[in-house]
């Protein structure tokens, strides 16, 4: 209200958005620390290993970025991953299809469909049922995890056929021109996610809904539809992560995906996405996921801090990231 007549910008010169750059600066700084602590950190094998291991969280976190930007939250992603993984392995064990490749492709397709349906359920329950997403996904978190435990009868579900197992292993351990498939998946998911959020009309509407639901409603945007779709995309991201995860251990148990929801949310927030919605940064989320994984890796490689404290360090990171965002905003 106090601008001069031609509403002059007070800070137009400050175009470089510190919040958008900060996660990458932090990642570079942490990598430099890692290199200083142990020369093996920068080896190609170690770096690709770190990247591959971060695939699950990074992929899930891209979906979470969309959900959170739209003003939602999904706590059920870890349990959903376990549930989808269990169903996928059960399908692989069913022997419905003779050809191993065809069987694996069908299992992947089934996973994606189940993930999307789980997301649709979360989305419809929050929007049509008008229930807080925190509560809905807390509920489905229990449901999904418990369903897996029941399917596994308290134990684990393992791919039985060794031929199928060997063929499927390639999806996690194989590579294209030396780049592991999981790394390609991260890059692909991030590119698509960033494209959706920043370039498409749907992404614009997601931001609008998260920024101010009333404005969106008064602008004729189908708020429920947009939000529900973000949960469906989140379910798809979970399924993509599962498709990469299953060949790694070839089994799923009640411990699968435990705590992934918190790591995904941490990656999203560390990446500069605003927890209450309206601002989303997909590449920042990728940086956030990498930061989490790199720090764990450094702690394993160096003996300064016990690796049993990884959880504590990751917990500290989210708090530090929030403080940094607060300080940057108050400047």
């Amino acid at each position, binding site marked *: 209200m106090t601008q001069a007549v031609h509403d002059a*910008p007070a800070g137009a010169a400050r175009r470089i958005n510190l919040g958008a750059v900060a996660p990458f600066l932090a990642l570079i700084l942490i990598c430099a620390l890692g290199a200083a602590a142990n020369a093996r950190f920068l080896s190609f094998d170690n770096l690709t290993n770190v990247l591959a291991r971060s695939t699950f969280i990074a992929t899930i976190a891209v979906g979470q970025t969309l959900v959170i930007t739209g003003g939602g939250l999904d706590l059920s992603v870890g349990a959903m991953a376990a549930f989808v993984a269990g169903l996928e392995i059960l399908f692989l064990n069913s022997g419905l299809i003779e050809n191993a490749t065809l069987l694996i492709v069908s299992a992947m397709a089934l996973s994606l469909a189940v993930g999307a349906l789980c997301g649709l359920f979360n989305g419809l329950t929050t929007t049509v049922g008008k229930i807080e997403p925190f509560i809905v996904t807390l509920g489905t978190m229990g449901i999904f995890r418990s369903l897996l435990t029941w399917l596994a009868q308290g134990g684990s579900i393992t791919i039985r056929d060794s031929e199928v197992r060997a063929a499927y292993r390639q999806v996690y351990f194989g590579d294209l021109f030396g780049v592991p498939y999981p790394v390609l998946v991260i890059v692909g998911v991030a590119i698509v996610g960033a494209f959706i959020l920043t370039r498409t009309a749907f992404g614009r509407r997601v931001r609008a809904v998260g920024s101010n639901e009333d404005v969106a409603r008064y602008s004729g945007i189908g708020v429920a539809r947009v939000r529900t779709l973000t949960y469906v995309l989140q379910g798809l991201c979970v399924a993509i992560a599962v498709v990469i995860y299953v060949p790694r251990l070839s089994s799923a148990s009640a411990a699968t995906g435990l705590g992934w929801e918190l790591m995904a949310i941490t990656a999203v927030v560390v990446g500069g996405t605003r927890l209450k919605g309206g601002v989303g940064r997909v590449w920042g989320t990728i940086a956030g996921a990498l930061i989490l994984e790199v720090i764990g890796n450094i702690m394993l490689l160096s003996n300064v801090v016990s690796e049993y404290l990884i959880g504590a360090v990751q917990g500290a990171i989210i708090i530090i990231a929030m403080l940094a965002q607060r300080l940057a905003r108050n400047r």
Partner: protein
Amino acid sequence: MSTASAPNQPQPDSSRGRLGRGESEFVLEAVGLSRSFGPIEVLGDVSLDVCAGEVHAIIGENGAGKSTLMKILSGHLSPTRGALKLDGAAVDLAGPVDAERRGIVLVHQEIMLAPDLTIAENMFLGREIRRGLVLDDREMNRRAFEAMRVFGVEAPVNLPVERLSIAQRQLAQIARALTVPHRVVIFDEPTASLTPVETAALLRLIGDLKARGVAILYISHRLEEVKAVADVVTVLRDGKKVATRPAAGLEPVDMARLMVGRDLLALYPPRVAAPSAAPFLDVAGFGADGFAEDASFSVRPGEILGFSGLVGAGRTELFEALFGLRKGAGAIRLDGKPQQWRDARAAMRAGAVYLTEDRKGKGLLLEETLATNLTLAALDGFQRGPVVDRAGEARALDTAIQRFDIRVGDKGLNAGQMSGGNQQKLLLAKMMLLDPRVVVIDEPTRGIDIGAKQQIYRFIAAMAGEGRSVIVISSEMAELIGVCHRIIVMRNGRIAGEVEGEAMTEHAIVVLATGVDATAGEAAT
């Protein structure tokens, strides 16, 4: 208070003594206040003073520096240069709390109440009345009720603020500010969302404060109101003081000239008779659950229909229900075809748009750019495949800036960084991108300076000229009379009557709005 000397003499900068006030009486003085944000000076060398029992009005266009000045006087901002004196002694206000402790109270323009708490809880927030360890809710409710009654409103003090109308919230905010012990009260656009009856009650309250020796600073865009309430008027333009004059003998037209720095053309556009076509929008027996019932009316193409009424008469709610934005039911026909609008999207598809009274809360994304806001409702038209056509958006923004005279130095600004007038123009541009055939504008000029108002009225007239059906909901009777062909008046959720042509007078509207044939200012109920 001020014993006016020659009212219209040229204005030297120092106003001391010239207005016949002794320097010793000054409660609050500002000497040479300046304030810069970065390289931009928004306030330059402004001096001002106010005596006990005096109303000093500050007027100026948006961006003239009024709000900045008020924020400095109330401790929300510190001046870059200049000083404040309280009772003749220099003071350094550490913040709004410090200012309140010294008896300087600012009544904010924007509503600053916790939406989930009740009026009473808000009013006593931080100063709760207790009995022992327990809150004395009954006493707080009673006092809050009494405080609201001063405005002639029987307020539901135990309802969450969220469920009140904007006017009721505004009154609650004023009442809350006045529960702080005060010697200087600063009102920043207090009547922007009030109807005439509440405005009259507020002006009476200010009269009481004055009689008790309180010093009052009063910012308003409504020059008639300034004329009625002020003893002294200071005019700001582009961050500088243009004049300080006694209010006696200063007519609104003089004030407007000083504010704008040139003669204003007629405020309202020339009236064009509405074509006598068949009704385009026809509403029958429509109700909004809990707010309005059995409303029937129609608008012709090219006609401007006004909706007037007191706060809580259900005007906004009726139209929100009509557009599927809240619960309601009834029959709508558009060009003879029955309609059912489940949400704003359905109404937009049929060619009807509603521009909310709550620009900041429901109209614009304050943290998004102008282009994003402009195309939000019409985004389907800015797509190539699934991708947003940014070049097309940029072109649309250029067109909108031209057509609606949106004054921005930098097109990359966020909507929240613009003045109220520019925000309203942007909202107008946003909805006009849909090329609607029915346009409903709720409080089109609330909180907007006179220059922008004049433009908005011309845009409204132009819409009707293009054959659109326009409905204007407003609490300013003068503007309804100025721009509308016909005015429907609501009372207690029902249509109380309709005035047209020569019969459109403030008196006739007030009689319908209150149900009481008395002079303006007496509240019904």
